[in-house]
């Protein structure tokens, strides 16, 4: 009887591993060799050091366009744009890097620095949201899924060996905390994405009262301002910054989320 169970579980694990391997194999097909990527990255860094930030930005962008996304690429691309004086694009890439690694102090410092250089603002999130921003979406998912699997294992053991139910019950209850935290983190990202962040990449922008040229200005949006999208009206976006909202030309903004 026990042997059957062990065999069944082993088969399941093998099938799962096979599926993951197949996915990985399919993904790896058509990839650029790592050495070539590394070389391009180094060329970009050399161009940056040689005070050719535009060349560096082009090379970093080339890597990103090939489908490689990492906090290092976005961070360095942000630095290149900053050096070119394109603060809006710098903020955009720092923010993308920050989404991948929200606790990275270098990213935080450069993002803050770029924002301060134009007196740009960020959305005033609540304390709970700011706390849940401490981890990236991937980290929250890993936490929630790990807690979920661990809780499932504990629950399974609890079903089989009920004589240990007190200890196992406590373990199960303890696992609910990381599970709830992970789910809260995922939910937070989902809520924020309902009004996704966009970055003003053009200088001297103003949010207008109405989506038309010549409309009255409502509030100023310095380059690099991170706003939240309320409505996409084609050529115009209705954006919010704190309690204020207004219309800006869509060509002046770029979304932070890359999906």
């Amino acid at each position, binding site marked *: 009887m026990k042997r059957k169970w062990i065999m069944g579980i082993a088969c399941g694990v093998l099938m799962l591993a096979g*599926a993951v391997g197949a996915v990985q194999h399919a993904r790896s097909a058509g990839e650029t060799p790592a050495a070539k990527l590394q070389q391009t990255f180094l060329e970009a860094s050399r161009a940056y050091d040689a005070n050719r930030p535009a060349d560096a930005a082009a090379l970093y962008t080339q890597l990103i366009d090939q489908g*490689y996304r990492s906090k290092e690429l976005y961070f360095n691309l942000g630095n290149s744009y900053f*050096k070119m*004086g394109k603060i809006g694009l710098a903020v955009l890439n720092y923010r993308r890097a920050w989404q991948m690694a929200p606790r990275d102090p270098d990213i935080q410092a*450069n993002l803050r620095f*770029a924002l301060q250089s134009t007196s740009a603002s960020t959305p005033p999130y609540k304390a709970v949201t700011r706390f849940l921003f401490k981890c990236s979406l991937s980290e929250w998912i890993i936490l929630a899924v790990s807690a979920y699997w661990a809780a499932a294992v504990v629950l*399974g053991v609890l079903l089989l060996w009920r004589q240990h139910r007190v200890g196992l019950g406590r373990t199960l209850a303890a696992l609910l905390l990381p599970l709830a935290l992970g789910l809260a983190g995922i939910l937070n990202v989902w809520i924020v994405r309902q009004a996704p962040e966009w970055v003003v990449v053009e200088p001297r922008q103003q949010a207008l009262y109405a989506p038309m040229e010549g409309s009255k200005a409502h509030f100023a949006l310095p380059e690099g301002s991170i706003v939240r999208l309320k409505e996409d009206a084609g050529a115009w976006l209705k954006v919010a910054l704190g309690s204020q909202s207004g219309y800006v030309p869509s060509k002046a903004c770029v979304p932070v989320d890359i999906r």
Partner: protein
Amino acid sequence: MRMSRRQTGYVLTLALCAWMTALRGWTASVEFDIQPRILRAGEAATCTFTIRGIDNPPSPQLPPVQGFRSSFAGTQQSYSFVNGQKDSSVTFTYQLVPIQTGKFTIGPLTYATPDQSFPLPAIDLEIAAPESSASQQGETPEDSSDLLFAVFSTETTDVYNQQVFDIVLSIYSQGLNLGNDISLMNMPASGLSLQPFQELQGGRQVINNKVYDVRRFRAKVQALTAGTFKLEPTIQVPVRVQSERRSPLGFDNSFFDDFFGMVRTQPVHISPKPLEIQVSALPTEGRPPGYAGAVGQFAFEAQVKPTDVSAGDPITLTIQILGRGNIENISAPQFVAGDDFKVYDPRLVSKDSDAGRGIGRKTFEQVLIPRSEKVKELPALVFSFFDPEKKAYETIRRGPYPIVVHPSSNATARILQAVPSHSEASTIILGTDIIYLKPAPARWIPAHKCPWYLHPAFLAAQLLPVAVLGLLFLAVMRREQLAGDVALARRHQAPRTARAGLRKAESAISKGDRKAFYEAIWKTLSSYFGHRLNLAPGELSADIVLSALNRAHMSDSDMECIRVLFEHCERARFGDVGADTVHEAQERGILEELTQVLRKCERLKL
């Protein structure tokens, strides 16, 4: 010299008394009031003298009042001690009953105590004549618009675009009990921005010799575009009316009526006379350059700090605009400094506004950086607004502000990140630099359109624990069920034991062991029917089995077959096997027959 505990107590008590006496002296006051001040003949008004901060105050003497008959109605005392402050008051109440119509003035009066006297202001009263006897007696029904109507009013109906102005809604009612949830419908959807209504102090008013209770509401309105706007809303007023059903306890009292639901609210719709508002565009003539849309009356101040700096050091310009008007839409005045300064966008640092009163204040901060020591002053700041009362543009100028700029002592340390001149937006970053590039990532992982956590394989894998737990749960439940029900457990065990017995019999045929064959057949029969009928090993017999099969309506032929099998087994087991010669075909036939019969038994409910 040390004081005893008792002496200390005396000193503290005396100090407390002295403090309270002083406090009492500071707060002595007398208030004189009469409510209501407009009333019908036949109604009574209440006159009150409220005396605070005087112990045992003498009773005020209300002089004879022309047109009124007055009578003393009582005294009320109250004490309070809040946050160390004592407050005592005595209220003397008189009832005034009008005896003739007209306008009367009571006072001014003087309230005097042995120590001091208090002058009290005069109060005007108006007594309306009683209404016509016909309407009072209800012989002709009164027009409902006489009982309840509303009036929309505004200071001016000619306003300018962006101007903030008041509209006042007055609801007049006569002898009606109005609820609080008054709502406006059919207001213009665009062109005018209407703030929430705020209720003002109500009162009474005489119109056409009728006394009306008046409730007034005020709202701030901002004109958003030029044009003509007609306000002709419908106002829904909840009127509380007495239900015809009598109180179950027979009380004639509003408290009990309210308590037992005898009062119901009836919404009444009234339409005030339409109010037409003409919104004009702001004049272009005389519009100052840099005008940014402020309409109202504003004051403007600016402050510069510090005024003694080195080139490259930031100077903070604090701009404060306050006043009455469209403060929400006001932005900081534009600072025109040329190439002498690096100018950052102004930042709103605080905003206080009272939308109900239409006043507010905004404070902006703007960072300016002198590029060289040649700069001697900050240019003047100009703020313009349109004053709708004067119907003209006003301009306030502040500055220029003299500043002292020293040569930069360490220019390279301050201007760290220089960028090409064509991108002026952020050519100079002060104080520090951005952090240098990050090294190449350790692994180059291609990102795909579908992130890993949305991959179907990953999502499907998350169902695995639920499925496994579900199966496990069912298995455990089954195990527990079988553990608690022996008959059911044996019922499930029966086919397994039968199969094992049949396999043994097959083996015995192969070996040619006839005794073992019948032994296996017997074991198959006994274990199968023992489990199926939940019998102890010694209880099983052919009769019991056949009897059970008979109850389950098994066919006679099958029952006969089983009976024969039992007999064969009995004979074989107890020595009547005959020759040891193997009749393999015969035994295979028995085995097949037994298999078929057992299959049929499986379908029977024993």
